[in-house]
């Protein structure tokens, strides 16, 4: 009864370990926060070190300028990266052709035409598409889209660039739609009203005022989606094939950079073989491609941001 709350507080304030904890906690948390930085460093170091080892076995010029990728050959192994890049670009091109018009149209519809109620229903459903595991998309490409394509175009092979391209496109639609819709919705309402008050139709408001005003966000969303398409692995592994080709056909089996890494990892390429190191060289190339895309997206959205 003799001690007041204030006395009790004063007693506990004196304890040393409490002050110690207050000093220690930020240090621990800083170490935890640096895990993400260490991860980046780890990725870059891993890729660089193992790629350098790869280049002690294969010349840099052969890798960078070669147009034949034949790692499993019994006679002459060839490590020219271009067929894998071409395979990746074929799939990405198809994906962009599918996803950009649909994604941006959906964004315009949701942002400019749809009522609040419709938007609140459709946007989450579209985002379900983004949450479906890529292995499921791969299965869908292989067992549905490819046979469907073959009924209309018999020249399409079991493994080809079109089917995974279409399905990668479906996968990145929500990314483009969602980010573009955010960019368009963030154009202030009073700018929309200004255009409507001049007698514009909704279409004119969308195309001539909102789209140009939101262009940086829309372009950034497309670039990010392209980056995602380039790095997509399971869809192309299942439906794209494993035939690296340096040509322009889309109906034949191809191989992307990511699918090559999977193909080698699945098999038992012994540790220390050239093939083992080659997946790091390919992974490094892939990493540079996607990193450039991500930096470009950040640059676009900062550099061309409109101020209202």
């Amino acid at each position, binding site marked *: 009864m003799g001690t007041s709350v204030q006395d009790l507080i004063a007693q506990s304030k004196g304890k040393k370990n409490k002050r110690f904890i207050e000093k220690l906690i930020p240090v621990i948390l800083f170490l935890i926060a640096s895990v993400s930085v260490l991860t980046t460093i780890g990725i870059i170091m891993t890729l660089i070190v193992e790629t350098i080892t790869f280049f002690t076995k294969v010349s840099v010029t052969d890798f960078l300028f070669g147009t034949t990728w034949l790692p499993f050959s019994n006679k002459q192994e060839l490590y020219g990266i271009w067929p894998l890049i071409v395979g990746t670009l074929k799939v990405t091109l198809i994906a962009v052709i599918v996803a950009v018009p649909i994604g941006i149209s959906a964004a315009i519809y949701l942002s400019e035409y749809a009522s609040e109620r419709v938007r609140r229903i459709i946007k989450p459903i579209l985002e379900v598409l983004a949450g479906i595991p890529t292995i499921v998309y791969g299965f869908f490409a292989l067992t549905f889209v490819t046979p469907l394509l073959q009924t209309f175009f018999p020249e399409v092979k079991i493994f080809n660039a079109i089917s995974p391209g279409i399905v990668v496109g479906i996968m990145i639609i929500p990314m483009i739609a969602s980010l573009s819709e955010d960019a368009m919705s963030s154009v202030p309402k009073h700018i929309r009203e200004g255009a409507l008050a001049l007698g514009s139709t909704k279409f004119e408001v969308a195309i001539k005022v909102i789209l140009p005003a939101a262009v940086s966000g829309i372009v950034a969303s497309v670039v990010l989606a392209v980056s995602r398409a380039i790095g997509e692995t399971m869809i192309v592994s299942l439906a794209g094939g494993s035939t690296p080709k340096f040509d322009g056909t889309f109906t034949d089996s191809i191989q992307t950079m990511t699918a090559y890494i999977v193909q080698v990892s699945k098999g038992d390429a012994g540790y220390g073989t050239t093939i083992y190191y080659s997946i790091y060289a390919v992974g490094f190339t892939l990493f540079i491609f996607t990193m450039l895309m991500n930096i470009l997206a950040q640059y676009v959205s900062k550099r061309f941001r409109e*101020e209202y």
Partner: protein
Amino acid sequence: MTVSLMNNTVANDQNTAASSNIVYETKQMNLWYGANHALKNIDMKIMENEVTAIIGPSGCGKSTYIKTLNRMVELVPSVKTSGEILYRERNIFDKDYRVEELRTRVGMVFQKPNPFPKSIYDNIAYGPRIHGIKNKKILDEIVEKSLRGAAIWDEVKDRLNENAYGISGGQQQRICIARALAIEPDVILMDEPTSALDPISTLKVEELVQELKKDYSIIIVTHNMQQASRISDKTAFFLNGEVVEFDKTDSIFSNPADKRTEDYISGRFG
């Protein structure tokens, strides 16, 4: 307040119409936001080449009313209306009256300057372009004429290709007025156009309104009673969604007929 109902068939030959013509006639108009009865039995006649001011405390329905005149109010979901508003003798609520058509005749200037994030030139040329004018020379002329009309040509003539957000708020608002003038409207609606501006910019816009009334009919909502008395020919006092009093500005301010008007203009509430 008597009005001669002359037989003027719509807008094409408005230049020849006499100054006592009716632009807008509101008949027993009601408006609801959901269950909220925001405008009650409005009856008003607005005359050509006059400045009509609408005053009243916030929430009295003055902004809602002016936004109904070009049907911008319908952007709010769950808005219902009844009654009629005749613009040049045609009911703007008619099913076959397209809002886009109405709005090319009735320009609007908003509370907050809202230029498009485009160049000054493209802001002014936007309206004419969507209405089908593509000739660069004609567009140039329209841009100059509109900017001169909004008394801002001299300030921006050398920076027409700069973004409209690079100029001051007061200049932006006059750009928005020029943008409205560019579609050569019949009426200009102004919804508290000076509420976001500094006193000097406000003065410029007020002078401009005086200038514009020679060619246009202007309806201006303002929360500033001095402004209403300075620039308007007629004044309507709105309270709780009703028109309490609508008369010549001089009589409203010197000799209000209704006690509530008197209370308001003498600053006893609102």
